């Protein structure tokens, strides 16, 4: 079936630097994308979302970019902090699939002090 995948399984970043997490998706019918953060022993936490009629959306310290031409999604975290250490998942929705989220395999972000 269609899957959302990630290029990098693990990302090590120095505290204070910016982080970029990438995600490739294959379902061209997907029209809504979400980034979740999952800390050890916890459920996924909503970070930011973007609809397919947008290219960029900004939140607090986070920015999501969507390139529909190459089916690519990225999450940028500014001034990465130790609390940002977690596994990050991108997920997508296809309008025809209702409220079902399709997740990728995740990227682990390790913040070095």
């Amino acid at each position, binding site marked *: 079936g269609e899957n959302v995948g990630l290029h990098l399984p693990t990302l090590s970043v120095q505290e204070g630097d910016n982080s970029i997490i990438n995600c490739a998706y294959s379902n061209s019918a997907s029209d809504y994308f979400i980034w979740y953060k999952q800390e050890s022993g916890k459920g996924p936490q909503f970070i930011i979302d973007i609809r397919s009629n947008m290219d960029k959306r900004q939140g607090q310290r986070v920015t999501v970019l969507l390139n529909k031409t190459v089916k690519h999604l990225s999450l940028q975290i500014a001034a990465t902090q130790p609390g940002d250490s977690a596994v990050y998942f991108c997920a997508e929705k296809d309008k025809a699939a209702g*409220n*079902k989220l399709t997740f990728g*395999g995740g990227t682990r972000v390790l913040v070095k002090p």
Partner: protein
Amino acid sequence: DAGVTQSPTHLIKTRGQQVTLRCSPISGHKSVSWYQQVLGQGPQFIFQYYEKEERGRGNFPDRFSARQFPNYSSELNVNALLLGDSALYLCASSSSGIRDTQYFGPGTRLTVL
């Protein structure tokens, strides 16, 4: 405001047994979705319920069933447990269950021996 709550936190069962997991959505949310997350992977969609009716089902065997109650809480039942059912079971709630953000609970860790 309380987030999504799930019970129990952890559960250990043996093969062939049956298990019931419970979820209470965020107050005011009418939709509940269930996901299975195997260690090291992204969550996989199992069911979505909205206003007590099933609105979506993932690629899981009939051993998996669920229901939603008038107060919008939900139960996930798994019969004839297999070792491969060992996973974190996540519940997510959303307002209308159609095109809005899903917020996840902490999950129930099920171990099948």
